[in-house]
């Protein structure tokens, strides 16, 4: 190849190599700090651990293996138990579905009210953002316990607790998606005299719907798990059964395994359906 390096290029070369050296130095230092923090943090956590990490490590698999060995002995019983817990699973799924739907709809409103460039009252954006922060800050289980105390046990307190958290969590994600939406269609609609609702519904929703859908469906999966856990505190569904089985300990482990299997199969099913739905939404049927 012919050599074209002009004297002008020398200063550029020097400058770039200097920049490179700096970048590498900073990168190396960051890596070093990261490793030191991880190691020192681990040592501190280990020293405060009641049992001791290294002694306990060898027993890590004891519980799962005793559960699995008992379940494998009674493997013929598993389908029967799975059939028995099916109504409870449906109750858990119902709690998750309703709370995702209610929370998701609230999240749409909150998201549009707190997105720069779309919000009808830009001065109120910080207010709606803090509302969503608050909704995310409370763990579902705390809200559920308070509601059970007031309303009594059952699926309704669980539903409200999960929906509350969902609207905060989804609202934040929805708003971040909407922030990246192209404003040109919205401008086109306002040029024909469309109202705020019309601009959002016809200009923004078609753009953000695929991403919103996939976040909502992911949230549905998370909520299935959350509603199963809320069963532990007495709001019905499959979680209650799981808690009883786990508390009984040896002798009921086949039930524990059966419940985990149906939960896993449910998540797989939801994942399959949601990816199918999303495909259709993005590509058109």
């Amino acid at each position, binding site marked *: *190849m*012919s*050599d*074209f*390096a*002009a004297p*002008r*290029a020398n200063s*550029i*070369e020097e*400058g*770039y*190599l200097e*920049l*490179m050296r700096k*970048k*590498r130095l900073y*990168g190396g230092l960051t890596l070093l700090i990261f490793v030191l923090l991880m190691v020192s943090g681990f040592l501190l956590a280990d020293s405060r651990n009641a049992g001791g990490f290294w002694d306990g490590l060898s027993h890590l698999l004891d519980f799962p293996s005793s559960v699995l060995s008992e379940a494998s002995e009674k493997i013929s019983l598993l389908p029967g138990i799975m059939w028995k817990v099916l109504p409870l699973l449906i109750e858990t799924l119902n709690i998750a579905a309703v709370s995702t739907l209610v929370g998701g709809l609230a999240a749409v409103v909150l998201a549009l009210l707190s997105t720069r460039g779309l919000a009808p009252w830009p001065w109120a954006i910080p207010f709606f953002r803090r509302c969503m922060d608050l909704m995310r800050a409370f763990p579902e289980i705390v809200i559920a316990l308070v509601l059970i105390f007031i309303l009594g046990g059952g699926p309704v307190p669980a539903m409200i607790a999960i929906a509350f958290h969902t609207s905060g969590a989804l609202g934040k994600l929805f708003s971040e998606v909407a922030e990246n939406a192209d404003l040109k269609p919205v401008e086109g609609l306002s040029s024909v005299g469309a109202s705020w609702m019309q601009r959002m519904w016809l200009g923004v929703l078609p753009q953000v719907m695929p991403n919103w859908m996939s976040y909502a469906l992911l949230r549905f999966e998370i909520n299935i798990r959350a509603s199963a856990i809320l069963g532990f505190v007495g709001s019905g569904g499959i979680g209650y059964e799981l808690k009883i089985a786990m508390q009984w300990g040896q002798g009921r482990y086949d039930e524990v395994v059966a419940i985990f299997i149906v939960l896993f199969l449910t998540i797989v099913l939801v994942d399959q359906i949601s990816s199918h739905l999303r495909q259709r939404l993005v590509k058109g049927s």
Partner: protein
Amino acid sequence: MLSVQSLSKAFGSKTAVDSVSFDISEARMVGIIGRSGAGKSTLLRMMNRMTDATSGAAIFEGENVTALKGAKKRAWQARCAMIFQQFNLVPRLDVVSNVLHGTLNRQPVLRTMFNLYPKADILRAIEILDRLGIAEHAAKRAEALSGGQQQRVAIARAVMQDPSIILADEPIASLDPMNAQLVMRDLRRIHEEDGRMVIANLHTLDTARRYCDRIIGMRDGRVVFDGAPDELTTRAAREIYGADESFSESATSTEIEALVEREIPERPTQAVSA
């Protein structure tokens, strides 16, 4: 040197490239012209192996490159640089890093992940950028550059590969006339000074005439013209573009001169306007 033998590509029932054959015996600058949908891009993508051919072969220096797999395929791609219409740079990385991507095929993976390229490669990247007149942008992010500058960064990446062939897929279709001219001149210079084969898909006839030694015309996936620029008559051009009597070359021109003065003396053929 390069021999394309009845290369075909079908997408479902639609044939995009239909049994294309040609030979290029020495490092020439070849223009492929035709309207959009004629199969020009698919042809180049098959040669670079980004798209697999349905049938046929491309033989380069005795090696059937359409049959290569795995590491050998990637090694061929390193020897057969590609330039895209939309530049296809990594927008958030700096210009020199983008040029250094031309060496990815011969660098260990870990080294490239942490941007630890050898000093000699960095210096060569800057030298190539300087040769193309954009060395002062070396440390900027690629997205901060104009379209014409980005395309020259893409050319620098291609040169960095030290390739035997440079394929250019509509390299000037998204550029303004001024930048289009600069980019075509750079491609021509690299062809003349380094002796590399350049095959460029071009929209417009006059660009192909001006910069290429040989023109291949495609229509509906087939080769309908193959010859020197001065063999390309108005009749042949109408055949390529499927146009009627009203077709005139200057009407499709993107050259500045063609807009200012419709007469360009050094044009090989002027009998094109109807």
